């Protein structure tokens, strides 16, 4: 088999396996059978395609072969059952449609939407949601997901097995929730996707290439969600937010693996194409006048993206956006960001007061970014010894190597 063919098959798997498996689950009513059939079909592709050449529609080919495999399994299962006299417990095999061969459009988008809702069902724990989403919709292999989350393969497999067993045993439905439940369930889907993104984006440990894949995967999933439910501005906002963050990926870390702050980033490294797509999507979302947390965060990211230099950043507008975000999601972390925006946009003293007011509750006392942010403003105010103490406090609160190196550099720069 040629290297080209292997690459083609890999890319078909990446791009299409989510769609294919979603349709197979609808037909078989089982995650396991659907996955098995798809794996078998890809295995057949390896041998058939190298002999006969690439089919016109590789995904369609895989789908057709996988469906035939499902029919085979059903036949095998019937034979096995006929031979077995008494079953103590019913094997959880879903009802088989009698006419597996009928023309059903396998690649209907509804299947993927159903699958997203099943994988992100709140009856599954968050870790299971993430693993299942990446495995079934994302086209990542179990070893790849395990590497990305720094888990052993058996641990991750266990997680997937348990999640699939719960879906089967508790009968978590494979359908789009009704209108009443939809908003809450969509929020749960977006949360899972954003969790995947952040895992890839903020990661500083582990196999960085695989972890990058998580961010791209999250963006791909958000695209699917946006495509399937385009009239929900928060879906669009989430996609815009991730595109805008991801556009800075190259500039965030320098050649030595050091974290580079927004202020010091080489803005020519920002991906213009992603930025313009993100800005366009954000405008579309905001035009619907139903602002939500993802749109507001995207709007903040957009103001950074639009600034040609750090000095051009519209910090006042950013401060206002944080204020609105705080109204929707009152959290100390958002209040902290609001304080930073005031410091940058209005004046340093006001910002420092705002931050120290939040600090009085003690809630952020063990949060390293609180101390780092406070230190940063003190440094700008030239209150060096207080800045030094605050950086030291921040340093004592993070174990992340990249963050520690950053704080040490800041501490060292105070002396000069």
């Amino acid at each position, binding site marked *: 088999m040629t290297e080209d063919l292997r690459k083609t098959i890999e890319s078909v798997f990446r791009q299409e396996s989510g769609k294919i498996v979603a349709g197979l689950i609808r037909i078989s009513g089982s995650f396991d059978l659907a996955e098995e059939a798809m794996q078998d079909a890809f295995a057949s592709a390896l041998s058939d395609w190298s002999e006969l050449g690439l089919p016109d529609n590789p995904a369609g080919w895989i789908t057709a072969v996988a469906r035939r495999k499902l029919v085979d399994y059903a036949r095998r299962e019937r034979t096995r059952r006929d031979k077995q006299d*008494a*079953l*103590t*417990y*019913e094997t959880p095999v879903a009802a088989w449609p009698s006419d597996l061969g009928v023309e059903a459009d396998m690649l209907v988008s509804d299947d993927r939407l159903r699958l997203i809702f099943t994988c992100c*069902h709140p*009856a599954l724990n968050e870790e299971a949601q993430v693993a299942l989403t990446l495995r079934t919709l994302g086209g990542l292999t179990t070893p790849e997901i395990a590497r990305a989350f720094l888990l052993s393969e058996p641990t991750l497999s266990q997680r997937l097995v348990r999640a699939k067993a719960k879906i089967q*045993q*508790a*009968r*978590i*439905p494979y359908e789009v*929730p009704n209108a009443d*439940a939809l908003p809450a369930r969509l929020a749960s889907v977006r949360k899972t996707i954003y969790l995947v993104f952040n895992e890839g984006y903020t990661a500083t440990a582990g196999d960085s290439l695989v972890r990058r894949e998580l961010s791209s995967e999250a963006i791909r999933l958000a695209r699917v969600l946006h495509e399937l439910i385009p009239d929900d501005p928060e879906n669009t906002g989430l996609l815009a937010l991730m595109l805008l963050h991801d556009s800075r990926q190259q500039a965030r870390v320098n050649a030595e693996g050091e974290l580079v702050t927004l202020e010091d980033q080489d803005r020519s490294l920002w991906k213009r194409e992603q930025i313009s797509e993100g800005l366009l999507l954000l405008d579309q979302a905001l035009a619907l006048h139903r602002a939500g947390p993802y749109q507001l965060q995207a709007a903040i990211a957009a103001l950074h993206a639009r600034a040609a230099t750090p000095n051009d950043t519209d910090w006042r507008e950013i401060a206002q956006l944080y204020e609105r975000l705080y109204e929707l999601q009152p959290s100390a972390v958002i209040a902290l960001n609001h304080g930073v925006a005031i410091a940058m946009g209005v004046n340093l003293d006001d910002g420092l007061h705002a931050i120290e007011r939040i600090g009085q509750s003690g809630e952020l006392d063990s949060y390293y970014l609180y101390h780092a942010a406070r230190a940063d403003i003190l440094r700008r105010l030239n209150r060096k010894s207080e800045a030094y103490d605050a950086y030291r406090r921040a340093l004592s609160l993070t174990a992340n190597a990249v963050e520690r190196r950053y704080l040490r550099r800041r501490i060292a720069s105070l002396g000069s």
Partner: protein
Amino acid sequence: MRYMMLIYSKETAEAMSAEADRQIREGHRAVMEDATRRGILCGAEPLSPTSAATTVRVMEGRVSVTDGPFAETKEQLAGYYILECRDLDEALEWAARIPTGCAGSGGCVEVRPMRQTSASR
């Protein structure tokens, strides 16, 4: 599929106000009537408080009997429903309607699919 809805509530020493008591009874009555009308009610019973509970354990053929519930937890099993539902989402909708409060403190409902044995088919 049948789901068992296990109601967990706090057991409080002080008596409930007549009004709170009435509200909880009303809530259960509504759920039971509705479930009966739809033909999905397979069972529902309230339990006496855990002060009336006795735990029996057989170890190496010897029966040991102890006073009290199996586990001392903040919230105790107070009753159950068994409902026939299409899937988990339907079961969760019903569970959300079951009153769990007791003397002003909220409880919770654990939803467990019942295992399908050959006898139950």
